[in-house]
């Protein structure tokens, strides 16, 4: 390329308790290029960039900026050097306006907050780059794509030379992704370098000039973007040929285990997040709910479980109307939920593993001896024995059932929740992002388990933003957009066109949706 590197990272090593996150990694960023950091979840991509951004300090190695050794010990240092990062979870203050977020901490406004100059400069910038941001709107009212653009403007206003984007497309619709790529190419022309962290092969091949692959903390390869070979890249990412060869036994039509009729649910802000939805899950079938996050899936799952009250419509569990009955009753009817927000809903950190297994099962006869009111005792011996069984069966890495749940790693917590929910012999499981954040082995295990219980006659509603997962596991796929079901397909009936439905460009009308639910 003939370009000198703006940033050189040499021999970076970083250790966390119990794990070597980065092992002597070299990474360079050249001026005016888009370089991708490709790798699986947990490969170390974000950690490497966090070090560059000053959030972590490396245990070994050095960083050179413009050929000079740099000590970056905080984001402030990084920003001074022109290095900016946009994280997966936006670092924005929801209650503040876009404008306030952009100027926060910068020198753009004086002590008495005169915004005029700042507004002018921002408008000039966004005009050059070809988009618009509603500056006076509160961030919480913006879409994911708009929030991302606020973050980018935030960085540019601080004279960013290097813009690091961490998994930027995970919350965008395909249309928004295209717009983002347009923006990135414009930035490249303007001389800004972009580091694109991702685990999505096809996107990386589309946008990057250069691709660096990390696996388990090591740099395993570097290829030119234009001539990249996807199979080679995949092998570099994963290391072996991982064939998700999951058995999918075929089941004929059975009774309905979950029926949702004309359901409307409001979001936290009081707007309809789920609009007149029809949905059906039969015994022994996996229905995959596809869609970009934020289109009502969360509210739908919560309404089915009982964490949220619908304003109209009906939810039937095995024929019983559960629309307004408390969670406790729904649990008794065989409902089970693997929540996406595991730490918030799934576990009580300061209680032991065994006590966590009881959370939604404490009233079962197995664990609670008879007795009324205050005298209802817990059969502690039984609880401990059961917990040990589950630890073994689900390979939860923990010293024993008495340890506090918060000492478990994310993957093990997921196994714990999985163990608890799957072993209750439910009739219906709502699985929300069941493999998010898990390594390859665990992901395979979870997916196989779901297929196994499906074979035993359990109905599964799979809510996932991972299309690969949806396609691999589902017997039926429903697409959700803007709170409505806009598409229903049998497995094999659809492939990439599903993106059109996810964006809302294509949609099935109500009658068609109903017909599809009937016919499949």
């Amino acid at each position, binding site marked *: 390329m003939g370009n000198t590197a703006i940033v050189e990272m040499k021999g970076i090593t970083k250790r966390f308790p119990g794990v070597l996150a980065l092992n002597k990694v070299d990474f360079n960023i050249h001026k005016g290029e888009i370089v991708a950091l490709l790798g699986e979840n947990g490969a170390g991509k974000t950690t490497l960039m966090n070090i560059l951004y000053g959030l972590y300090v490396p245990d070994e190695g050095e960083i050179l900026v413009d050929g000079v050794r740099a000590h970056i010990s905080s984001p402030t240092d990084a920003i001074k050097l022109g290095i900016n990062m946009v994280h997966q979870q936006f670092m924005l203050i929801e209650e503040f306006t876009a404008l306030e977020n952009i100027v*926060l901490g910068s020198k753009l406004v004086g*002590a*008495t907050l005169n915004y005029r100059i700042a507004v002018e400069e921002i408008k000039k910038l966004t005009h050059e780059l070809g988009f618009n941001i509603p500056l006076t709107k509160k961030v919480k009212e913006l879409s994911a794509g708009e929030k991302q653009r606020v973050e980018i403007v935030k960085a540019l206003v601080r004279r960013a030379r290097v813009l690091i984007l961490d998994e930027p497309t995970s919350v965008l619709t395909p249309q928004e992704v295209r717009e983002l790529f347009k923006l990135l190419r414009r930035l490249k022309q303007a001389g800004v370098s972009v580091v694109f962290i991702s685990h999505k092969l096809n996107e990386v091949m589309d946008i990057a000039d250069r691709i660096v692959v990390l696996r388990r903390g090591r740099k395993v390869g570097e290829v030119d973007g234009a001539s990249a070979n996807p199979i080679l890249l995949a092998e570099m990412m994963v290391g072996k040929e991982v064939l998700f060869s999951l058995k999918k036994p075929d089941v004929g039509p059975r009774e309905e285990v979950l029926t949702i009729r004309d359901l409307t649910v409001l979001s936290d802000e009081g707007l309809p997040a789920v609009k007149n939805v029809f949905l059906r899950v039969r015994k022994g079938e996996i229905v995959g709910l596809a869609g970009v996050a934020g289109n009502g899936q969360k509210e739908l799952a919560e309404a089915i479980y009982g964490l949220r009250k619908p304003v109209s419509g009906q939810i039937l569990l095995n024929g019983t109307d559960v629309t307004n009955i408390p969670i406790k009753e729904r649990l008794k009817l065989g409902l089970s939920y693997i929540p996406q927000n595991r730490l918030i809903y799934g576990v009580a950190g300061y209680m032991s593993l065994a006590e966590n297994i009881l959370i939604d099962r404490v009233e079962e006869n197995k664990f609670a001896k008879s007795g009324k009111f205050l005298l209802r005792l817990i059969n502690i011996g039984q609880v401990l024995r059961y917990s040990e069984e589950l630890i073994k069966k689900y390979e939860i890495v923990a010293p024993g059932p008495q340890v506090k749940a918060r000492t478990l790693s994310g993957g093990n917590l997921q196994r714990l929740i999985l163990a608890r929910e799957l072993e209750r012999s439910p009739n219906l499981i709502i699985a929300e992002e069941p493999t998010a954040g898990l390594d390859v082995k665990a992901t395979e295990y979870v997916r196989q388990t779901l297929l196994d219980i499906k074979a035993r006659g359990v109905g599964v509603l799979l809510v996932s933003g991972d299309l690969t997962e949806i396609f691999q596991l589902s017997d039926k796929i429903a697409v959700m957009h803007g709170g409505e079901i806009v598409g229903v397909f049998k497995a094999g009936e659809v492939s990439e066109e599903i993106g059109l439905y996810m964006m809302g460009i294509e949609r099935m009308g109500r009658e068609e949706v109903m017909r599809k639910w009937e016919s499949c």
Partner: protein
Amino acid sequence: MIQIEQIPSIINLAIVMATPIAMASIGEVFSERSGVVNLGVEGMMLMGAFTSFHTAYLTNNLPLAYLVAVVTGILMALIHAFLSITLRVDQTISGMGLYFLGFGLSDFLYKTIYGSQYVSINKTSMIPIPLLSQIPVLGYGLFTNYPLTYFTLLSVFLAWFLINKTRFGLHTRAVGENPRVADSLGINVSTYKYVSVVIGGAFAGLAGAFLCIDINGLFYENMTLGMGFIAVGLVAFGRWSPLRAYAGSLIFGFTWSISSTLQGYFQQAGFSQYVYALLMLPYLAVIIALIMMSRKAKGPAWLGLPYYRE
């Protein structure tokens, strides 16, 4: 029951009684906007009351007494700040400790030095604002008052301006909403929190001094009568705005003032036992006010939680 001639003094008393609460509340607004709850306000007020009393008694220098109270409040606030910000102790628990300490220490020191008698000091007198104080009814009610009362009214607006229209305020609010974001942008989270808590302490100490020197002219055990807690409650009631917090303090002020005025009437009419029912009214009013407002109140997102970098 209430004669018309009494209305100006009712208004006057209402504003006077509202002042210490309002002062403490404004200080607490700062503290909470940066994310720190301070339940020790009551203790800080009591210590402020005592130290100002002692200073006034010894030196007869009232401005000095106020200053000492402010310093006392700041010192106590620093303890709370150190415990809850630096050591990440639970804010509620840390605040309660300062309440206990302030409560006990102020009373102990007074009893040790002055014994159990009531000792009085020279009070400040009310200063009428020229012209405005000639207005009928409101003139005496609103515009003839203690200097610190005027100061409190001024600080309501100053506080509002500081919080909403300055960079300091923007940064403080950022720290209270999402310290992680603020930190990543180079804002020193700890410093802003410390400063806000110290401002809160200064106001609390001054509020105690006002209560002691201006209103009562003497010190007695637990003389704040729950006002510190009410001040904290009013912050939520006022949805973290100094203007609304002041309005809330007026609720207490007026209830107190009206029930005070009615007391005389009750005693004359032979209902002297029921005087105590009247004394309960201000506190009931606070509870009702809290209930009414608490539904919609959403404070700074990070309120009450410690922040630290990994």
